[in-house]
């Protein structure tokens, strides 16, 4: 009798142990992982302005004016509030102005770098990948530090952006940690042999700061990018239309010269003088603000990526 009772107790104990072990593994797997130390670099605000345009910060974080996308000087007011629709729900961009209370004015450089490149907030929570840190992870950390120096020069905006809530199970932020195991990778997507300095400059802009793949690459069921179809076009996240294939195939970029791509990014006109449209208008205006050699580097990179039908 006593032996049987003991074995039931032992079984319950073992089950409890297994549940706790699984919970511990799950907790460990979903834990935020951060960068511990910054590279030796003196942040340069002027250089950071270029990164600001390349990264498209204002496209999401500039506070809309009368319900419309901010343009001109209003793009310097990063109070947040713009919505980003997705199949998982609508995300709202937060205030990233240097306001000490409502924005990111109180953040240290390391906290900023971890937010941008690892998707981890200063209080150790995961950001949803609507904030494209899986792309920003491929930036040079020195560039991210320059970016913060530039953001610090912009006007503080008071007021927090609206909060948002996704449907279960996406509402469990901690689960983003598991997602990051599969989707957060700092390795280049495309490399050329032999290495080419111009293509590499373009790679940092397209794969990193410009986060082009976030819209131009299709996503799997859980929202991770399908790298086998890198830049090969995807359904639009907001449900209307398609984001085009920008690999060198078919009627798209294959028929465009590098000069055509540069001119498109500078002016917004295709070689047929059709205009840029949709969300790409804001992107193109950011690209137009870059130095010409950056647009040339982007064009060189796009000519170098593998063609995918």
């Amino acid at each position, binding site marked *: 009798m006593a032996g049987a009772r003991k074995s039931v107790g032992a079984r319950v104990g073992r089950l409890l142990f297994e549940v706790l072990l699984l919970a511990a593994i799950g907790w460990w797997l979903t834990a935020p992982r951060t960068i511990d130390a910054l590279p030796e670099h003196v942040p340069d605000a002027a250089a950071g302005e270029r990164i600001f345009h390349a990264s498209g910060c204002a496209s999401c974080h500039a506070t809309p004016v009368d319900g419309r996308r901010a343009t001109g000087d209003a793009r310097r007011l990063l109070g947040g509030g713009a919505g980003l629709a997705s199949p998982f729900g609508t995300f709202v961009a937060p205030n990233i102005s240097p306001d000490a209370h409502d924005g990111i004015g109180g953040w240290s450089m390391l906290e900023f770098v971890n937010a941008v490149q690892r998707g981890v907030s200063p209080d150790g929570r995961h950001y949803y990948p609507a904030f494209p840190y899986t792309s920003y992870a491929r930036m040079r950390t020195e560039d991210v530090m320059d970016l913060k120096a530039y953001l610090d020069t912009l006007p503080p905006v008071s007021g927090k952006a609206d909060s948002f809530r996704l449907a279960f199970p996406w509402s469990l932020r901690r689960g983003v940690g598991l997602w990051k195991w599969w989707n957060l990778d700092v390795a280049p997507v495309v490399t050329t042999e032999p290495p080419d300095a111009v293509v590499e400059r373009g790679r940092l802009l397209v794969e990193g700061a410009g986060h082009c793949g976030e819209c131009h690459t299709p996503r799997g069921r859980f929202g991770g990018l399908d790298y086998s179809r890198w830049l090969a076009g995807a359904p639009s996240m907001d449900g209307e239309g398609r984001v085009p294939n920008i690999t060198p195939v078919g009627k798209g970029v294959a028929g465009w010269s590098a000069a055509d791509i540069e001119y498109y990014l500078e002016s917004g006109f295709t070689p047929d003088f059709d205009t840029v449209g949709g969300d790409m*208008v804001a992107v193109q205006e950011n690209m137009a603000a870059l130095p010409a050699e950056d647009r040339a580097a982007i064009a060189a990179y796009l000519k170098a990526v593998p063609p995918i039908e």
Partner: protein
Amino acid sequence: MQKSSLCLVALLAAISTAAMAVANEDPRVQRHELMEGVRDAAKPLGGMLRGTVEFDADTVAASLATFSEAASTFGSLFPEGSETGMDTQATAAIWSDRDGFDAALAKFASVVEQAQAAAPASLDAAKPVLGPIFQACKGCHDDYRVEKD
């Protein structure tokens, strides 16, 4: 036998003509064709601005006339019931934000009118009046055109 097949051909021809007439009257087809005309008219002007096409005042005037005509009729081609179908590239915002759409279209009409009044005779004179027209195209496509492959 021959007679009946001839009749059949005639009947088919009549049906297809009627179908084409219906299709041509569909606002989704009309507005698409109108925009294609605008794009074709814009192409040489874009080339002049980019420096790949030589400036020609007559071509500019002809294109501006095409723009002006399009600006006056385009707004009437978005009736209720034409929101979807036939591969339309109109966004839902045209109907949900009709005032914004009308304002964007009015902006296009006004910069075209200014360019016509200026009647530019040189590339240097054309640049400042053609630039805003292209910006108006882009400004409207920003919110009111769906992008496709």
